[in-house]
């Protein structure tokens, strides 16, 4: 765990992530400008750090209703605006980028942030960027695997010799600058089903698991498959951190939290995936065994601790701002996390 900068004595890490969506507030029908959205994300990160939150990350999506296509630029601004919180991407779509350029960018951000930066590399759940950036969707899987492997190789070796299908070969290529410690954590972003989790295990990389809704027991299959695959490939699972990522909203009561959060999540899903979030499923999200962390602070604490028991994960990252949530609401959430939720999570998960 030390290699990936986790200290079990400090308890499970709690982070925040944003996809960088840029969606009208469903309560007012109004949408802030892209400039205001980006500046609020940077401000959001600063507040998160002040509240003692461990990690903050920004994702890239290249389509309508998003504002952080250039996510590494936004993360770079966050690196400058913060001092101690870990930062990263959620996720970097490595399939449609050049791993050399991605590594240069993130190594630079790591230097700006004084060694706090991580990359989470994903395959894209929205695939509009393949057309936009000139890639063939039929290469979806191979593009990811090849470029992710190259990214990992650049992280391990400063001078790279490599050849593949989707990029010109590298001959004694020096990829610089190096991150502050010569190396930085690179995670594989994994959707729900176990197939991708198994790939993460076989590659011997830490796993980010998206857990948007449904019983924790369903996601446990992916966690177990990941650890089995690590063992199968000769790694020690106790050395590899797992992080989960999912919806979060805290309010005084669970009923209030659901009432506040639903219109945002429903509209957000409607606009970016073309289907709203079914109310029946959302209602079940309040169950103590569902991974959706929407409720009163006390209920959220109980759910996160239950999830920790089921997954044994090292970090949870919360998506709070999805679907045009006002900045006041975000501030209120940060306050509840900092004053009520975080101390309890740390108290019960710290290994003595």
């Amino acid at each position, binding site marked *: 765990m030390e290699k990936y900068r986790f200290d079990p004595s400090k308890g499970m890490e709690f982070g925040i992530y944003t996809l960088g969506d840029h969606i009208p507030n469903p309560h007012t029908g109004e949408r802030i400008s892209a400039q205001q959205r980006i500046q609020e994300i940077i401000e959001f990160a600063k507040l998160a750090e002040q509240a003692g939150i461990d990690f903050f990350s920004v994702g890239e999506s290249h389509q309508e209703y998003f504002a952080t296509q250039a996510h590494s630029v936004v993360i770079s601004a966050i690196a400058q605006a913060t001092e101690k919180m870990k930062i990263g991407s959620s996720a970097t779509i490595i399939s449609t980028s050049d791993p050399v350029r991605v590594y240069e960018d993130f190594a630079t951000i790591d230097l700006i942030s004084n060694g706090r930066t991580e990359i989470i590399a994903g395959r894209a759940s929205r695939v509009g960027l393949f057309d936009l950036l000139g890639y063939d969707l039929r290469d979806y899987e191979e593009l990811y695997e090849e470029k992710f492997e190259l990214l990992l190789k650049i992280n391990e070796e400063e001078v790279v010799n490599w050849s593949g299908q989707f990029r010109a070969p590298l001959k004694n290529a020096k990829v610089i600058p190096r991150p502050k410690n010569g190396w930085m954590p690179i995670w594989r972003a994994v959707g729900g089903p176990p197939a991708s989790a198994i790939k993460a295990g076989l590659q011997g990389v830490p796993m980010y698991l998206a857990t948007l809704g449904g019983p924790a027991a369903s996601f446990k299959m992916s966690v177990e498959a990941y650890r089995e695959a690590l063992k199968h490939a000769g790694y020690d699972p106790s050395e590899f951190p797992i992080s989960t990522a999912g919806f979060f909203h805290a309010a005084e009561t669970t009923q209030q939290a659901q009432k506040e959060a639903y219109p945002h999540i429903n509209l957000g899903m409607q606009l970016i995936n073309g289907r709203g979030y079914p109310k*029946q499923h959302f209602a079940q999200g309040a169950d103590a065994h569902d991974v959706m962390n929407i409720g009163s602070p006390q209920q959220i604490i109980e759910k996160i601790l239950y999830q920790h028991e089921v997954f044994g994960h090292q970090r949870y990252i919360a998506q709070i701002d999805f679907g045009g949530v006002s900045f006041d609401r975000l501030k209120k959430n940060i306050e509840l996390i900092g004053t009520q939720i975080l101390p309890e999570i740390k108290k019960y998960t710290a290994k003595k």
Partner: protein
Amino acid sequence: MKVVGLSGSKVGSKTRTAMEYTIKALNEKYPDVEATLIDLAEYDVQFSDGRNYMEYTGNTGYVAQTIMDADAIIIGTPIFQASIPATLKNIFDLLPEKALRDKVVSILVTAGSPKHYLVAEQQLKPILTYMKAQVVQSYVFIEEKDFYRKEITNDDVLFRIQRLVEDTIVLTETYTKIREAKEAEYGF
């Protein structure tokens, strides 16, 4: 309420003819319903390549979006090689897996032989159920002998089409009311 009539084949005229009768019956009995007929013979729809339905453009984008916006869909299909035509299956493949949630779907079949009666039951309904549709259980099955030069000549078929239209609308209204009542209870 938005109802889409989907004529699922590029071949022949019988399904299209039957769907025209169906839309006419719908317009006559329910003038407030917004009815749209999509005849796949008139559209150049690409094969599904796995992208989100919103990312298709042109005819493909129009057909996918119109179906996703519908409250109810009346599918008209011929039977080819003891199954539904590829053009119709492709429409399902273009859509997300739970695309038909909260939609009522009814079926009208045209076939050259009564031997094909169970094809819709055994091959089309499982797809609709998987995609979470509320399926109108009784479907209209029309044989070649019921047509004469793009007209339906069997009164019983016309009666059955009227019943299909009525069942589709009544079930859509009913499910909508049930869903609204249930959702109001959630309090969010």
